């Protein structure tokens, strides 16, 4: 009779498995249709670099290249130049003439953000970093100053 008992029990288990999958089929899918629908990220999510400005439109970056020195992978390249009376970019004496981030090298470690004395560079929330050409992975100063609006929603603390 133990064989019969086993048969009944295993049949019950099979029915239970099929019940679970049926329940899953009735529930709405968990899929987020990524490029179309926004992704939920945490408030301290670290995405693509951005260069910030002051409220008056001045660039925060003073071209000190501390981020370049702090970068463990050598992904940042800064060339500084003097501010003049006619051409003023930042409140200090110098500004960054060239500011490039190589995303192929960057490991998103946030060391540059910690090194920055003026809080000019931050890591934004843009996670969509894929591209078609190697050249497009090098972010220029224009890319960094005008970051695209990331398609994300920020999770609130529960």
């Amino acid at each position, binding site marked *: 009779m133990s064989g019969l008992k086993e048969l009944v029990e295993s049949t019950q288990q*099979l029915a239970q*498995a*099929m019940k*679970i*999958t*049926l329940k*899953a*089929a009735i*529930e709405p*899918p*968990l*899929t987020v*249709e990524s490029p179309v629908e926004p992704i939920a990220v945490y408030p301290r999510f670290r995405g693509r670099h951005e260069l910030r400005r002051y409220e008056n439109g001045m660039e925060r970056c003073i071209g000190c290249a501390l981020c370049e020195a702090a970068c463990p992978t050598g992904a940042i390249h800064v060339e500084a130049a003097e501010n003049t009376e006619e051409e003023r970019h930042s409140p200090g004496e110098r500004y960054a003439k060239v500011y490039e981030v190589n995303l192929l090298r960057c490991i998103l470690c946030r060391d540059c953000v910690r090194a920055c004395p003026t809080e000019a560079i931050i890591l934004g929330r843009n996670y969509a970093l894929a591209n078609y050409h190697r050249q497009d992975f090098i972010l220029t100063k224009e890319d960094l100053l005008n970051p695209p609006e990331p398609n994300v929603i920020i999770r609130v603390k529960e």
Partner: protein
Amino acid sequence: MDWTYLLIVTVKVIVVVVGLLGGFAYMTLVERKVIGRFQLRIGPNQAGPYALLQPIADAIKAVFKEEIIVTHANKVVYMLAPAISVGFALAAFAVIPFGPDIHLFGRTIPLQIADVNIGLLYILAMGGLGTYGLILGGWSSGSNFSLLGAFRTTAQIISYELPMGIFVASVVLGAGTLRLSGFVEAARPWYMWIWLWLSFPFYFTVMLAETNRSPFDLPETENELISGFQTEYGGIKFALFFMAEYINMITASAVMTTVFFGGWRGPFVAQWPLLGVVYFTIKTFILLLLFLWVRASFPRLRYDQLMSFAWKLMLPVSLIYLAITACLVVLV
């Protein structure tokens, strides 16, 4: 035997083959969609509205893939094997009645390609011959792993053909005919219907193994055993094996519909005969969904479990069932 008869048969053959191929193409889509829903995903949704163009995209991809024939392959057999699989899979459908007789231009046209008086035997034979496609495919690839895969497949299909044959024999005993249209018209008392449906879960399980569907898809085992006999196949030849599997699945569902659930029978068929085709399609589709549901629910069996399941459970159960059916038929 005039030319109109030939014409009618040709048209029926074309309709069935096109229907089966279309059924195969959209079954792959339905499977991916339904399995996705069972796993809380949404499945393919990019190619056209409701991903309806997905099978076409898949077909184009398969056709234009680079054709690779391995050096050690026996080329003739290697090319022939997928064709054998698909050919016999299509041929098996010939005896299945997919609708009642229709009257057109003063003729009676049975909606069935051939009403063979050994219909069920013919289907078993076609299923057995279709296995040659898999075995020859594995052998002709000239690869040890493909050959081992083919052996696995052969052992599985031969093992499960025994309980399947015995279940078929008991069903035939109950209906008193081998003709598939006879099953549709068979009149049984209610207790015989219940007795018949009692064997359906067992027969369905055996058919899962016969059509190499999950959880018995040991011939493929794509994630742990590099797809067995079809390791060396790619592109359209791989798609042909895939097609054979799905057509076998459709045929198996159609046979089960005919044998267990009265085929095209349903309300109002007498007034509108074409309604029978609709009933037949719906019943077959529900059984196909059952195949998918089972695939989504259970993990794959180990090989020794597969074998002990066939020989230690299915074979004794089928023999007992046959014996009791025989008693019922004689005594009642």
